[in-house]
């Protein structure tokens, strides 16, 4: 299990709040399923970090995942 200090923990929770908001609005995927998958993904990506995960390392993983708003089908531009 990864260890997070307060800053990264808050950053992560804000990411999940955004994820839930986007997926509830979209209505196509199950937000609980996706959140569980993303938590697993982050856990695996940071498994090799010894000690608490710092903000820049967490940011690197979140950047590689992309913003939740980019994951869903966006309306086609004219």
């Amino acid at each position, binding site marked *: 299990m990864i260890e997070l200090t307060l800053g990264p923990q808050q950053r992560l929770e804000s990411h999940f709040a955004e994820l839930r908001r986007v997926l509830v609005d979209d209505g196509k995927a199950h937000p609980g399923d996706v959140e569980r998958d993303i938590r697993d993904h982050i856990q695996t990506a940071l498994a090799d970090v010894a000690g608490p995960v710092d903000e820049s390392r967490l940011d690197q993983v979140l950047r590689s995942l992309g913003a939740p708003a980019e994951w869903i*089908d966006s309306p086609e531009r004219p």
Partner: protein
Amino acid sequence: MTCKSTRFFLRPIDYYLLLRHSRCMDDGPLTNWIVQVRKGLLELCILNALLPGRQYGYDIVKQLREIDGLMIGGGTIYPILSRFRTQGLVEATIEESPEGPARKYYRLTTLGQKCLIDMNRAWDRIHSGVLKLRRDAT
């Protein structure tokens, strides 16, 4: 003022911004086309990644990252997997992992396998048709 003299007097960033917002570098239609193509192909690629057997989400992302330009953010696959589950194309199982917490593995259902065969056939037809069109044009 000509373009050449503008270039001379502007800082590089200003010149870039001028070009970026001018008609000659308007990439809107291209970007939109890439987004649409990528969207359909990503679904096809996720199902193909599951063809050999069960896969962990993290490993699917790693495999798809090998395909240049297919995926912008790795998180994109998870809402698709969730939708595939609802559609009955994949199923998920939680399995203990020696490396840490239990992991969720995805596998194709029988319906998913049948659907994938049809999708691959459709893609092959379209792809070979486009190649033929390009060959004929040269």
